[in-house]
């Protein structure tokens, strides 16, 4: 595993290390051109991967980049010998960012398109609406959703999230660095519904473990588009302001926060989700200069850029600022879309480990992935090494904190993977197929 994980390695058990070594061999071999070719395959029929994608609806902006990343990953896999010597075919279906449509799409994958697996979607409500159908149809369903619903135990044995961490991990892993570097007295501003409540609960708990505490919790009604009346509620002794505002009001929130605080402000920490695909140099965002953000994967390539990141950006068509090579103003959803790339490579590794030949091997594929422990940093995993918990079907990975400097997000901290870990809430391996 990469040197950055040196501390982590000492905490891993033997099974993890052995699993990691085996996986390293498996994922490495598949990526070396010429080692396996379609000619060696028993069948050259493509492996069909149903790609459930937000082409329309509120997730369409993310769907566009999930689509680009998926196509790039599929091309790489096919150019390097496919899976078990067979090419892969991406069968894209629009889920409309709708749970009912999502379930329909899963059914089409299983019964009409005869896909081997389903993969891809992002919004939690679509995953939650689709997963039961995938379970009924016994179709492996690999999601890239970052929701906690997989590891919380509310889904089923056929639904896995091995390519991206969930929001619970993301939030709690921020607490140690925030407490040590920004302050221990935190005020949280969050939208007053389940998403904001999750942040409130996960972070409150995590910061208390670091000796800090949330001194004020300011819940903003979701329909609010002006925030001036809430800002005076921020206690004067606040050292860190943690904001997770989402929706069209985000830019207004930042602007009003700037007008309210002026030069005298607490440290500010937020989640990049609300500014995904938005140029940080956009007018109105000047106030964010000097503030910090969580990033799943740093948008801007820094001096420590790995060869894997360089390779990944080139394959997807993204420059060192996280924008499209064809339009430098077209900023990608860089903090999330890597999950598609990595999940497809995990599918490849899983199918090769299970010697997957067709739908009858779907259970073997699930078991093979459940038995995986480590995804080493590589071209297949450019975001970094990951630990996978087969019991909860959830991956855990390094998270990043970046500081806005000169209109760019400059990475200042990479968490340990163990900062993202939490107790198992389910053991899917005990569920029957």
């Amino acid at each position, binding site marked *: 595993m990469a040197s950055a994980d040196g501390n982590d390695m000492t905490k891993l058990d033997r099974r993890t290390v052995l699993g990691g070594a085996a996986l390293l061999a498996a994922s490495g071999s598949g990526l070396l051109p010429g080692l396996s070719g379609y000619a060696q395959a028993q069948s050259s029929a493509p492996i069909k991967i149903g790609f459930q994608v937000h082409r329309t609806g509120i997730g369409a902006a993310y769907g566009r980049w999930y689509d680009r990343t998926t196509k790039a990953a599929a091309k790489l896999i096919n150019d390097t010998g496919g899976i078990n010597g067979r090419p892969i075919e991406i069968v894209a279906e629009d889920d409309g960012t709708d749970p009912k449509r999502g*379930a329909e799409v899963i059914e089409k994958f299983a019964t009409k398109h005869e896909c081997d697996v389903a993969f891809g979607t992002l919004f939690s409500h679509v995953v939650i609406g689709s997963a039961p159908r995938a379970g*009924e149809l016994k179709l492996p369903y690999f999601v890239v959703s970052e929701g906690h619903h997989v590891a919380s135990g509310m889904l089923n044995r056929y639904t896995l999230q091995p390519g991206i961490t969930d929001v619970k991990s993301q939030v709690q892993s921020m607490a140690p660095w925030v407490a040590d570097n920004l302050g221990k007295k935190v005020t949280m501003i969050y939208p007053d519904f389940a998403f904001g409540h999750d942040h409130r609960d996960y972070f409150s708990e995590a910061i208390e473990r670091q000796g800090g505490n949330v001194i004020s919790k300011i819940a903003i009604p979701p329909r609010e588009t002006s925030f001036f009346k809430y800002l005076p509620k921020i206690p004067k002794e606040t050292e860190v302001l943690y904001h997770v505002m989402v929706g069209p009001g985000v830019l207004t929130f930042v602007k009003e926060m700037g007008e309210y605080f002026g030069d005298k402000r607490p440290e500010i920490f937020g989640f990049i989700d609300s500014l995904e695909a938005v140029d940080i140099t956009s007018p109105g965002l000047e106030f964010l200069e000097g503030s910090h953000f969580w990033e799943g994967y740093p948008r801007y390539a820094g001096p420590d850029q790995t060869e894997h990141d360089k390779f990944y950006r080139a394959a997807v068509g993204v420059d060192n600022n996280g924008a499209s090579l064809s339009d430098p103003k077209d900023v990608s959803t860089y903090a999330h879309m890597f999950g598609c790339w990595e999940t497809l490579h995990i599918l490849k590794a899983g199918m090769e480990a299970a010697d997957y030949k067709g739908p009858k091997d779907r259970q073997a594929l699930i078991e093979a992935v459940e038995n995986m422990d480590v995804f080493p940093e590589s071209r297949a995993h450019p975001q970094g090494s990951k630990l996978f918990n087969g019991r909860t079907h959830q991956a855990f990975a390094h998270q990043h904190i970046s500081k806005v400097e000169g209109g760019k997000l400059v990475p200042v901290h990479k968490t340990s993977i163990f900062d993202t870990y939490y107790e198992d809430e389910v053991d899917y391996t005990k569920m029957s197929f």
Partner: protein
Amino acid sequence: MGAFLRGCALFVSILAFPAPALAHASDSGIKLLLPTGYYLVGGTLAVAATVLIAASMPARWATALFRSHTLWSGTLPRIEIVTSLLGAVVLAALIYAGFIGTHDPLENPLPLTVWTFWWVALPLLCAVSGNLWALINPWLGILTLLDAKGFLPLPKHIGYMPATLLFLAFAWFELVSLSPEDPEGLAWTVSAYALFTFIAAVLFGWEAWSERGECFSVFFRFISRLAPLQISRENGGVIVRIGFPGFQVLHGTAITVSGALFILLALATVSFDGLSKTFPWLGLIGVNPLQFPGRSGVALPNTFGLVWAWAVLASAFFACVIAGRWLGRESDAPMVGRLALTILPISLAYHASHYLTVLLVNGQYLRATMQRMVGLDETQVTTSFLNTHEDVERIWQAQSGAIVIGHILAILLAHASILAITQSTGEATRRGAPLAILMVGYTAFGLWLLAAPTGA
């Protein structure tokens, strides 16, 4: 049991669980930073000022404005049979692509052509160059070849109701149904409508059915009356006339009450499409705007909403027309058929401003698909203009400009339409006052709609 569990899971997913923080800022967020309030006030005042200017200018100015000039007259071959046959071939190929092509609606040529070219762009083209749908519709050519002229009369008393009901069904399909862009589903829908229209045209004749039954022939014909160019066949020849946009509204034949209902439905549809995404509407139907559940979660309220929007708009319009008639002193000639046509510029303006971003984004997907089909390298789609301040400002200016210009033209047309009957500026102002107030109000509503925060 499985279906029950599925239903429960769906219910739970919609009501209780959060989407991740993915509803990021976009053009809606940037618009909240623009001084849209000034535009709203300024645009509304500009339309209101037009009412005052129209009331104070000599009657002959208004009629002169919409005078047409003959540009050319002569004979032209009847190309519409050939172009219609070509249209039928293209439609068949598109339906085939819908059935067997990629399932991605942004890569399959059927949904891109239907929704982006035909529904979004073609009305705008027709408003410039005249009724292109009359040339490329897929039925005229085949029906002519088959010499199918119909053998049943389409009852006069039902007026435009067949077209109106079909347009309502189309509006529901576009705005409320779960996946109108799904290539295969769309292929079935288009096939069914094409066959239905063919049968109706065989029964009633293409002339009658396209006049009052085939809703898109009706829609495109109405919208085309805004074109500055008119190409008409008269006495065996062709006459090309040119005039100020809307002159064909003024000089063409008036329509019936059911025709007025059709025009009002077209405007209500695009208005409701905008309204249904705003925070206030989502609040009204109990949906968290930061956690939009998807189309399936709002199908019922939006079905009612669509009909409600039509009913409210139609009620307001007819109330204004009746009030105007009551205010008139010199003439009580019915004017519904004339005044309904003056709504058309507003309808076109809403269409242009509402669909502008769809055209800019999905137009790129259409271009990429065409490039792919002819073996060229695809141009990568970008949406950066929805996330940069200056581009969003330009888009907003174009949208709000269209709304204001559309309403100004509507005010002038309404005034000139009444003048054409009453010949008196004072009478025209009195009779047109209630409708003018409605149009000024609709300007403000349209600008508010464009600027409102959206969550769907």
